[in-house]
C-alpha cells in the first residue's frame, strides 16, 4: 500500500519534470537561434557573406546540428549548409514578405531520428535573407542526463522515505498485529492460560498488555475456583448418592412381590447410575486437562488391546446388523500406555460409531503403527459430522447437530477422549471420510509422564 503510494508520487514527479524540461529547452533553443541570427546579421553587415561563412565554420557545427542559408538581395543563394546526415531535409519555402523587419519567422521540422529541427528566418537590412536552423539533439542529450540524475535522486528519496515506513511497520504495526493475534487466540477460547505478549519497544502497548493480562489472571483465577468448587461438589455428591442407592437397592430386593414398586426402584437405580457416570466423567476430564491425571503406564500390546475391544463390541454390532471390521498391522505394536484409559477412550469412540451408524452400516476399528507414534482409529460410514460441528463436538457438554435425542449422552465422550489423549501427550482428532467419519487417537511412543 505505502509502497504503491510512493511509486505513484514518483511517477507523477517524473512526468512533471519531463514536461517542464522539454518546455524550457524549447525556449532556450529559440533564444539561441534568435541570438545567432542577430550575430550573423551583424557579421554580414561588416564583412559580407564571407564573414558569415567563416563564423559558421568556426562554430564547428556545420551540418551536424546547425544549418545556414544566405540569399542575396537579388534572390541568389550564396550559402547553403544542410544537415550532412539528412540532406533531404530542405529549407521551407517562405515568402519574403511574410518576415517583417527584425522579426523572425519560425519553422519546425520533425526529423526521422526523433529530433526536431527549428529554423528561424530573418530579412537583413540590405534585403538579403538569412536562414539559421538548429536541431535539439544536444538538448535531448542534456535532458536525458538530467533524467538520470533525477532517477538517482528519486531512488535515494525512495530509500529514505520507505525506510521509515518499514521501520514503522516493523516496530509499531507488528507488535500491534501480534497483540491482535494473541487476543484472537484468547477470544476463540483455547487456553485461558495464554497471555498477550507485550512488545518491549512501545511502552503504551506494554502497559495495555499488562492491564489486559491482569484481567485475564482474574478471569482464570475465578474459573479455577469455579472448577475446584465443581470438583468438590462432584466429590460431595457421591456420598449422598451412595446413601440413596443403598436405600433404593433395599427397596428393590424387598419388593419382589410388588412389580410396580420394583419398576420404580429399577428406574431410580438406572438414574443413579447415569448420574454417577456423569460425575465420574467430569472428574476424569478435569484431571486430564489440569495435568492431574496420572497415567498408569505399562507396556501393552496394542493389537491385543484393539482386538479385545473388537471382541467387546462384536455383540452390539451384530445386534445392529453392522459390518464390524478389525484392521491390524502385520507386526504387533507395543507401547507404554495406560490401558484402562486408552480402552475407555476407544470405547467412547466405538459407542458413538455404533450409535450413529445406521443399521446395516459399516464400522471399523484399527491401528496403524509408525516408528515413534501409533494411531488408533474408529471409522464408520455413518452421516459424518457437519462442518460447523467439527470443533464443537470436542468441547464439554456440546453435541453435534446430528446427535439424536434417541442416543443418550450429554456431550462428554469426545471431551474425555481428548483429555485422555492429552494425558498421554498425544492427540485426538476427526477426519472426514466420504462417506462417514474417522475418529482417531494418536499416541507418542513416549507417552504420559516425562
Amino acid at each position, binding site marked *: 500500500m505505502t509502497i504503491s503510494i510512493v511509486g505513484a508520487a514518483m511517477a507523477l514527479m517524473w512526468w512533471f519534470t519531463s514536461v517542464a524540461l522539454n518546455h524550457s529547452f524549447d525556449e532556450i533553443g529559440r533564444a539561441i537561434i534568435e541570438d545567432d541570427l542577430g550575430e550573423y546579421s551583424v557579421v554580414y553587415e561588416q564583412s559580407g557573406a564571407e564573414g558569415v561563412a567563416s563564423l559558421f565554420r568556426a562554430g564547428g557545427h556545420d551540418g551536424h546540428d546547425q544549418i545556414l542559408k544566405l540569399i542575396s538581395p537579388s534572390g541568389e543563394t550564396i550559402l547553403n549548409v544542410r544537415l550532412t546526415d539528412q540532406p533531404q531535409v530542405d529549407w521551407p519555402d517562405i515568402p519574403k514578405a511574410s518576415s517583417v523587419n527584425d522579426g523572425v519567422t519560425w519553422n519546425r521540422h520533425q526529423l526521422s531520428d526523433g529530433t526536431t529541427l527549428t529554423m528561424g528566418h530573418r530579412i537583413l537590412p540590405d534585403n538579403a535573407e538569412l536562414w539559421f536552423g538548429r536541431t535539439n539533439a544536444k538538448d535531448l542529450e542534456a535532458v536525458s542526463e538530467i533524467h538520470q540524475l533525477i532517477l538517482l535522486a528519486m531512488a535515494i528519496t525512495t530509500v529514505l522515505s520507505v525506510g521509515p515506513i518499514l521501520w514503522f511497520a516493523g516496530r509499531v504495526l507488528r507488535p500491534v498485529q501480534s497483540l491482535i493475534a494473541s487476543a484472537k487466540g484468547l477470544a476463540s477460547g483455547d487456553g485461558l492460560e495464554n497471555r498477550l505478549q507485550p512488545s518491549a519497544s512501545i511502552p503504551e502497548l506494554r502497559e495495555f498488555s499488562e492491564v489486559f493480562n491482569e484481567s485475564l489472571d482474574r478471569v482464570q483465577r475465578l474459573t479455577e475456583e469455579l472448577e475446584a468448587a465443581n470438583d468438590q461438589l462432584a466429590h460431595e455428591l457421591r456420598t449422598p448418592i451412595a446413601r440413596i442407592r*443403598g436405600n433404593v437397592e433395599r427397596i428393590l430386593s424387598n419388593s419382589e412381590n410388588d412389580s410396580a414398586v420394583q419398576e420404580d426402584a429399577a428406574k431410580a437405580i438406572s438414574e443413579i447410575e447415569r448420574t454417577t457416570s456423569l460425575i465420574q466423567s467430569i472428574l476424569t476430564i478435569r484431571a486430564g486437562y489440569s495435568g492431574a491425571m496420572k497415567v498408569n503406564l505399562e507396556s501393552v500390546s496394542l493389537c491385543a488391546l484393539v482386538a*479385545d475391544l473388537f471382541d467387546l*463390541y462384536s455383540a*452390539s454390532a451384530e445386534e445392529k446388523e453392522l459390518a464390524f471390521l478389525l484392521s491390524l498391522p502385520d507386526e504387533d505394536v507395543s507401547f507404554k500406555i495406560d490401558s*484402562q484409559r486408552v480402552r475407555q477412550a476407544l470405547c467412547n469412540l466405538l459407542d458413538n460409531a455404533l450409535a450413529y451408524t445406521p443399521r446395516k452400516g459399516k464400522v471399523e476399528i484399527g491401528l496403524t503403527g509408525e516408528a515413534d507414534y501409533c494411531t488408533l482409529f474408529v471409522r464408520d460410514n455413518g452421516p459424518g459430522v457437519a462442518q460447523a460441528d467439527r470443533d464443537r463436538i470436542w468441547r464439554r457438554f456440546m453435541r453435534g447437530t446430528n446427535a439424536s435425542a434417541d442416543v443418550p449422552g450429554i456431550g462428554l465422550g469426545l471431551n474425555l477422549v481428548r483429555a485422555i489423549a492429552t494425558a498421554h501427550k498425544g492427540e485426538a482428532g476427526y477426519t472426514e471420510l466420504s462417506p462417514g467419519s474417522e475418529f482417531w487417537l494418536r499416541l507418542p511412543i513416549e507417552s504420559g509422564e516425562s
Partner: protein
Amino acid sequence: MKLLLVEDDAELARQLNTELAGAGYDVAVFRDGLQGREAALQEKWDLAVLDVSLPYLNGFEIVKQMRSEGVDIPVIFLTAKGDVNDRIQGLSDGGDDYLTKPFSMDELKARLLALSRRYGGGSPAELRLPEGWSLDRLLREVTVRGKAVPLQPREWSLLNLFLAHHEEVLTNTFVLDQVWGIQFDPGTNVINATICRLRKKLDDPGHPSHIETIRSRGYRFRSDV
C-alpha cells in the same frame, strides 16, 4: 466371619451394617480413623471395609499401619474420590480392592467373597455344578448331559465366575472387571450377548435357565432349576 467396617457417614454405615450382616458377616462399625486403627490393630478380623476420607486418619494410613504391623487380611476401600490415581495409591498402600461411591451392595459382597477366597489359600472355591455337568479345565470344556460343549475363552471365564459365585448376584461392573478386565462401563451389551450364548449352549431346552437375569442388579447362577 468378622468384618471391620470404618465409615464416618452414619446412614451409609447403617446400610452397610444391615446388608453385610444379612450376608452372614459379623460386622463391627467404627466412625473415625483413630478408632478404626485401634480396632484394626488390637482385635482379630477376617475382613476390613474402610472408607478413605475419615476424620483424624484416612483409610490409606490405616492400611499402611496394618500392613506394617503384619495384619494380613483382605481390605476393600470405599471412596467418594473415585479417581484412578486414588485407586492406584490405595492399592499400592496395601489395599486389595477399591470401590467408588455410590456402589452396589451386590458388588461389594461379590468382591468381599472373591477376596476372602483368595486369602483363604488361593484355591478355587468348591464348585457346585448342576446335575449332569462336569468341567474339564485342561480342555476348557464343559460336559452337559453327556455332551461336550466347547466354550470360547470369555464364555469359559464367565462360566467359571458364575460357578465361583454360585447363588450370588453379580453386577455388570463386577463381571466386566473380572472377565474383560475393564474398570469402567463401556456401554455395550457384551455381557448380555455372552450370557445369551452360554444359555444356548448349556441350558436344557424347556427348563428355566441356569443364569437368571435380575433386573437392575445383575445376574445369578443357580445350579438347581
